[in-house]
């Protein structure tokens, strides 16, 4: 005989204000099978859980229903409580009377009535619940980090320092990412290279870290603790094991017209190149679209000069397959294309540049050796105008609806640095709002205004146009309610950032969810901010949302902590809510395997007793519980109904349907 206990939570006034919780508890008392019914202010609190535990013991409960908030919130909490009281955790069901009831209905009678129905439905289900035991699966003690920017580097270093093997897969020829392109970093103005490159070197030298540069993730199989990842190692046409990074090839290469991506295409580089001086690995790569040898078959100069014979024009992409227990996604960002913002004249005027281009123009290793010169004529700009929010906070469809978060601070940094280096240069900043939450951030911005005399103008620019060689920046000055035109020499656009487009493919391979802006979704915005809803996948850096370097590094270390927490375990508990066939009814028809996305179903020949001493060998489905994710696609495709899903069995759902339909 079933002995069900029902616990109705007030959630303070969140539920109790709209649902008559006492009445619900009272009505439910007379439900068949219910032997105990109570209500309490906060079921999830220590006392609330105690109440449940006590009732389980005192009333010898066989099943528990908690009428409370969404099971996505506290199902785990209540299951744990039940387990502590000696009840199988899967004998607990939640009736969501907050998100699905009290919060959306206003009429108390109506909401109370609905709460009763929802609780009855949960009772109907729990009566058919069966105790389930989580299985176990082994953990491969190695992590994969996708993306070798500061987020990936930090995560890899932290994981490796804890003693686990880490592979960094980086699609470019070197690790370092966007941070390597920056000049100084706010709010302390340290030189970016000075703080980043030592970490890059640490990665290269760490015995537990394997850097797979110029590589991309090609395929992912498996699940938490046991991912199998296929990695494409793109042909760089240079033998990584031989190249010493002497750069003689770069000097001798006759094709020097390739755009220098590292310098935001502001200058050129040879067809064979090392992206920048501190690149890791310090190994050359050939751009086949620029290489004369590869285009025409004639040349081969680099091969001739390479002292170690590292050049291999015939190199092909290769693939490696490795096993990992956890995966960190740190794919980073790029500035958006400005095609939709021609009012700022980016396409027509060389001296209208993006902030990232300005970083290169101010960087000592950049195309102008750190001297600020305008791209059009190499002159020192005397008036520089910054435009904020270019493509950010834009719901018109041209740009991105979100705030890119980093622009206010780096624009203040740029403005300050220009005023510092070139005191005779006027600097104007058009802004909508200046957003500087963060330690020492607002102080930093105010320094730009108060100490460096940067002219901040509240208003947006309507048009940038060229007139007699000057860039005319026409915009509003809302404080003075006027329209102004600033004759400028250089215009810098604080261009919105967006996730690196390759993240979509990575997300698909990992079955990690992604939002409408292509940012990866975290498991919980507040409480599980570095975990993807896909178990074993963690998120670091801008792939999850716009953030600056300090935040990125924090998040990367948080990811590492999560990964380490996973990798120290030898075995993982698996979700017991998996498919399982009733072999006596299984036809062995293969329909279920046809729809299984995880390859969890195989078929075995099994001997069945037919009675009278006879036996029969039949082909029947067999589900690997460690691989099955519990979606239930197979159950519907099974004509005989032999395939069922534990925790969501057909009978349970049918019973819920029956209960929920009763008005």
């Amino acid at each position, binding site marked *: 005989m079933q002995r069900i206990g029902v616990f109705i939570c007030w959630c303070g006034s969140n539920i109790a204000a709209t649902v008559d919780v006492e009445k619900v508890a009272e009505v439910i008392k007379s439900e068949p099978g219910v032997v105990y019914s109570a209500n309490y202010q906060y079921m999830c609190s220590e006392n609330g859980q105690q109440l449940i535990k006590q009732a389980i013991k005192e009333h010898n409960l066989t099943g528990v229903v908690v009428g409370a908030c969404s099971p996505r919130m506290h199902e785990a909490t209540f299951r744990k409580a039940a387990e502590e009281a000696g009840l199988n955790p899967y004998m607990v069901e939640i009736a969501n009377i907050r998100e699905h009831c009290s919060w959306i209905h206003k009429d108390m009678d109506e909401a109370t009535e609905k709460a009763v129905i929802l609780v009855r439905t949960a009772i109907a289900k729990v009566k058919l619940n069966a105790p389930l035991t989580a299985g176990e699966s082994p953990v491969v003690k190695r992590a994969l980090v996708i993306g070798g920017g500061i987020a990936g580097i930090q995560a890899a270093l932290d994981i490796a320092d804890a003693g686990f093997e880490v592979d960094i897969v980086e699609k470019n020829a070197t690790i370092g990412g966007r941070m390597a392109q920056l000049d100084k970093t706010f709010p302390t103005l340290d030189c970016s290279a000075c703080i980043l490159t030592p970490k890059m070197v640490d990665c290269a030298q760490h015995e537990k870290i394997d850097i797979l540069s110029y590589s991309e993730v090609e395929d992912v199989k498996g699940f938490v603790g046991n991912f199998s990842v296929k990695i494409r190692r793109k042909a760089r046409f240079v033998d990584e094991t031989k190249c010493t990074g002497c750069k003689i090839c770069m000097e001798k290469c006759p094709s020097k017209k390739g755009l220098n991506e590292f310098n935001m295409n502001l200058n050129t580089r040879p067809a064979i190149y090392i992206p920048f001086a501190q690149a890791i690995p310090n190994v050359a790569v050939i751009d086949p679209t620029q290489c004369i040898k590869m285009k025409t078959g004639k040349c081969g100069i680099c091969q001739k000069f390479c002292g170690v014979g590292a050049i291999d024009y015939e190199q092909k992409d290769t693939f490696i397959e490795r096993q990992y227990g956890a995966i960190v996604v740190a794919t980073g960002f790029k500035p958006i294309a400005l095609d939709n913002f021609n009012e700022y004249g980016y396409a027509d005027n060389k001296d209208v540049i993006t902030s990232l281009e300005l970083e290169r123009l101010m960087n000592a290793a950049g195309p102008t050796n750190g001297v600020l010169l305008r791209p059009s004529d190499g002159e020192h700009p005397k008036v520089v105008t910054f435009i904020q929010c270019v493509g950010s906070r834009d719901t018109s469809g041209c740009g991105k609806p979100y705030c890119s978060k980093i622009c206010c601070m780096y624009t203040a940094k740029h403005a300050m640095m220009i005023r510092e280096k070139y005191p005779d240069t006027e600097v104007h900043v058009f802004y909508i709002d200046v957003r500087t939450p963060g330690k020492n951030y607002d102080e930093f911005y105010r320094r730009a205004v108060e100490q460096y005399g940067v002219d901040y103008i509240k208003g947006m620019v309507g048009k940038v146009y060229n007139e007699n060689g000057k860039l005319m920046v026409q915009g509003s000055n809302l404080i003075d309610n006027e329209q102004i035109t600033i004759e400028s020499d250089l215009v810098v656009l604080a261009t919105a950032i967006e996730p690196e487009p390759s993240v979509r493919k990575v997300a698909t391979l990992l079955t990690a969810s992604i939002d409408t802006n292509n940012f990866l979704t975290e498991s919980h915005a507040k409480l599980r901010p570095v975990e993807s809803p896909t178990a074993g996948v963690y998120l670091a850096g801008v792939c999850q949302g716009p953030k600056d370097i300090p935040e990125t590094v924090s998040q990367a270390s948080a990811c590492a902590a999560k990964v380490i927490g996973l990798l120290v375990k030898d075995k993982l508990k698996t979700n017991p809510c998996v498919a399982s066939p*009733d072999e*006596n*009814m*299984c*036809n*062995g*028809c*293969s*329909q279920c395997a*046809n*729809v299984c996305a995880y390859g969890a179903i195989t*078929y075995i020949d099994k001997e069945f007793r037919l009675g009278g001493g006879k036996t*029969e060998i039949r*082909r029947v489905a067999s589900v690997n519980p460690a691989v099955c994710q519990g979606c239930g696609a197979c159950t519907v*495709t099974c*004509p*005989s*109904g*032999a395939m*069922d899903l534990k925790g969501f*069995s*057909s*009978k349970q759902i*049918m*019973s819920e349907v029956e209960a929920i339909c009763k008005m």
Partner: protein
Amino acid sequence: MKDVELKMLERAKELLASGEVARVVGWKKGDFCYDPSPAVFKTVEELENGFVYDYFCGANLSKYLIDVSKKEGKTAVFLKPCDTYSFNQLVKEHRIKRENVYVIAVECMAKLDIEKIKAKGVSFVTGVEVVEKDVKVSSLYGETTLYKPEIVLEKCAVCNKTHQVKDEEIILHERPVRDVNRFAEVEKLEAMTEDERFAFWKEQLSKCIRCNACRNVCPACSCIKCVFDNPNSGIAAKANDSEFEEKMFHIIRAYHVAGRCTDCGECSRVCPQNIPLHLLNRKFIKDMDGLYGEYQAGESSEGKTPLTSYTEEDKEPNDVFNGEAK
């Protein structure tokens, strides 16, 4: 047809006698001329005493192979064109052991429907003789000539199937190719209003006595245990005790065979209440053809069905009616 029957008998005897096969699945004479039934012949004597192949051998033999193909030794089977689709489908679902079966493809020439003959007012039929499109029906009351296209089985009237499987064939006559639209009747129903359709099916399905003849004959309905017999399914029921139950049974049955039904028409043939059950299955076939591309179950013994595959561009359910998107 007689010449074909003789040839088949001869060949069956040969195969049994030589020990090449352990048994032959074919049709045996019934009590009347119009009710031959599927049978397993194990000896030459059994063949000589009962084997028949005539215009009333409409039954699909493929389903019987589920059991016999598991037995010791090879089984020879005579399959008409339409039967081979069911055979293939069962091989695809690993229900028939192909290597244990020897398929002899036989010509069909369209089978007759005794119900249709009776409906023409001819009862106590004692024999038929088919000459082109004329069928001379002899009965206790004399002889009548009927027009063949009017008295063939529904499945034969719209059939254009060809043998998909054969280890050898016995085909003495060319079968004329027909120009028919098997979906014509489905389209007629689609053209009706919702209310009219509802009324149509209400009338038809209310006749159902839940005898399970359709389920038992259907080669796709070959589950070891049917959901309707499984108390854990939540829909187990032995009888139609409400109008809902009538619909439920036929909707779920049609859904379960969708993508697997070869349109062999056996369900309608055996229905004692003459419910046009094939129109349910054909609706699924027509919709899937229209939405996901032409697909004929049983054409191949490999691959997925339309409902176990997908494309990213599939139409949205809310937009789909009558096999087309809005």
